[in-house]
C-alpha cells in the first residue's frame, strides 16, 4: 500500500536527517517504527504526510508511493485528500474548540453531508465513550482524553493510512493499555492501515505485525513481530531484560552498554 524507497531527508538544505530509509506497509496491517530519540522516526512520518515542508525539510532522494502514486514532496493537504492522515506527536488538538468542533474539523477534506458527519461523530464516540461527556473546550481535557480526541479526529477523515506519532507519550501505563487496545480495534474494524511510531517498544511490538528499528537516520533492523520479539538485541535494548550476564550487578555498574548496530 505504501512504500518508502530509500529516501533521504534534508532540513534547511544542509542538515541530513534520514539517509536511505525504506519502509514497506502492507494494507490492513499495523507497522511499527521504533528507535531512540532523534533517530528520525517522526521525520519519516512527516516525509510521508508532507508536513516536512512546514519545517523547511525536503525529500532529496528516493521516493514515496502510496497506492501506486508518487507522493513525495507533495503538499500536505493533497496527501490528506489521498487518504494519509498523521496524528502528530503531542496530541496537538485545537484547544480553544470543543470536542465536537475538533471532530468536525477532522472531516474537513471530505465532501460529506451533515447527517453523515453526525453519524461518524457517533461512531468515534462509540470507540471513545468518555469524550461524549466532555462538552467544554478541548484544552481542558486530560492528556489521555486529548490523545483519544486526536485519534478520533483522524478517524473522521476516513483515512486509508493513519500515521500515529507516539500515542503513548505522557500517558499513565493503564491509559497506554487502553489507547493501544482502541488503536488495535480501529485497525481491525475500520480496516485502517497504520504506521505506529513509539518509544514504548513493548506495547508497540505487541500490537504490530511488522517492525522497523531506526537509529541515527537509518533502518538498522526490521522483521516480523515474532522475529523482533525474539531478537536478543531488541530484547536487551528495547524490551528490557534480555541476556543473562546483564543481570550481574558487576556489569551493570561498570558501564552502560550501548548497542552499535553496524
Amino acid at each position, binding site marked *: 500500500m505504501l512504500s518508502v524507497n530509500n529516501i533521504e531527508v534534508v532540513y534547511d538544505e544542509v542538515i541530513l536527517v534520514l539517509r536511505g530509509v525504506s519502509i514497506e506497509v502492507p494494507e490492513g496491517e499495523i507497522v511499527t517504527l521504533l528507535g531512540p530519540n532523534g533517530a528520525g522516526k517522526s521525520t519519516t512520518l512527516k516525509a510521508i504526510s508532507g*508536513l516536512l515542508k512546514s519545517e523547511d525539510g525536503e525529500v532529496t532522494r528516493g521516493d514515496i508511493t502510496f497506492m501506486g502514486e508518487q507522493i513525495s514532496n507533495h503538499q500536505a493537504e493533497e496527501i*490528506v485528500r489521498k487518504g494519509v492522515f498523521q496524528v502528530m506527536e503531542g496530541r496537538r488538538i485545537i484547544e480553544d474548540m470543543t470536542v465536537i*468542533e475538533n471532530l468536525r*474539523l477532522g472531516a474537513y477534506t471530505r465532501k460529506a453531508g451533515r447527517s453523515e458527519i453526525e453519524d461518524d461523530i457517533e461512531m468515534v464516540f462509540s470507540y471513545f465513550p468518555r469524550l461524549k461527556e466532555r462538552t467544554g473546550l478541548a484544552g481542558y481535557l486530560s492528556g489521555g482524553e486529548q490523545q483519544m480526541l486526536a485519534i478520533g479526529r483522524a478517524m473522521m477523515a476516513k483515512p486509508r493510512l493513519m500515521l500515529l506519532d507516539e500515542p503513548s507519550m505522557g500517558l499513565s501505563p493503564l491509559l497506554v493499555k487502553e489507547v493501544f487496545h482502541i488503536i488495535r480495534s480501529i485497525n481491525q474494524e475500520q480496516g485502517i492501515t497504520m504506521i505506529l511510531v513509539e518509544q514504548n517498544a513493548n506495547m508497540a511490538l505487541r500490537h504490530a505485525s511488522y517492525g522497523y528499528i531506526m537509529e541515527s537516520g537509518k533502518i538498522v533492523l526490521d522483521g516480523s513481530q515474532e522475529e523482533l520479539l525474539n531478537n536478543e538485541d531488541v530484547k536487551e535494548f528495547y524490551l528490557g531484560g534480555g541476556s543473562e550476564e546483564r543481570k550481574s550487578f558487576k556489569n551493570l555498574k561498570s558501564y552502560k552498554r550501548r548497542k552499535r548496530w553496524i
Partner: protein
Amino acid sequence: MNYELLGNLLVNGAIVGTLYGVVAMCFVLIYKSTQVVNFAQGEFLLIGAWVCWALLVKFGLPFWIGFPITLLFMFFFGVLLQLVVLRPMIGEPIISVIMLTIGLSIFFQASMSWIFGVFVKPFPQIFETESVSILGLQVQTAYVMSMIISVIIMVGFYYFFKHSRAGLAMRATAFDQQVAQSLGISVQKAFALSWAISAMVSALAGVVVGMVNGVSSALSFFGIKVFPAVILGGLDSIVGAIAGGLIIGLLENFAEFLDSQYFHVGNMYTVAPFYILVIILMIKPYGLFGTKDIERI
C-alpha cells in the same frame, strides 16, 4: 445639565461604536489568522467607499447593484493583496510586515487622492428621508441602516466561525498552522480568505460612513480609531473587538459632551479614547478579552 444633547451623543456613540466594532473585528480577523498587524485597515474603508461612489455617481448604477459589486470587488481585492503583497512576506520578521502595511496604507491613501481628488464628495441620496426619529431623537437613516447591517455582520461572523466548514478551518489555522495542514486545510487559502472577508466587511463600513459624512480621505482615520478599540478588547478576541468598538464610540461622544458643557478645551473627542486606552492597558495589559492560554498543570 443638557440631557437632550447627552442622549443624542450617546445614541450617536453607540452607532459609531458598532461601526468601530465591525472594523475592529476585521482587523482582529487578519491579526488572529495571519499574525499581521494591518495598518492599512482604514484604507479598506476608503477604497470601498470610493469604489461604491464611483459606481453610483460615475456609472450611474442604482445602489442595490453598485453596492454588491463593491463588495465583490473588495473580496477579490483582499485576495489579490494577500497573494501578491503579503504571501512573499510569510516567515519574515513581524517588523518588516508592519512596515509593509504602513507602506500600503500610505500608497492607497495617495492613490485614492490621486484618482478621486482631495475634496469631500457626497454620496447620492439613497434613502427617501434623511433621518428618522427614535425615542424622540433624530437619527440619520444611514446610521439606522448601519446599525442593522453591523448586527447582521456580527451574527454572521458568529455563525461563520462557529458552524461553517471554512470558519472552523480558519480558526484551526489561527490556532496552529501545522495542525491545520495535517488536517488537510490549505493555510494559504485560509490566509487569502481572511484578507478577503476583512476587506469586504471594512468596505461595507466605509460605504455606510461615506453615506453620512461624504467620501474623503478622512475615512481612513477610522483605521486609526480602531486601534484603541482593538487593543482595549484584546488583540485577538472578536468579541473584545466589538465591545472595544462600542466603548470607544461611547467614550468619544461622552468626552465630547463633557468638553462642550464644562471643560471647553476642544477636540477631547479625538483624544479621550487614547487616554482611556493607556489607563486600561496599565491595569489589564492583555486587554479586556485577550486570550488567556489554557495551560494544564
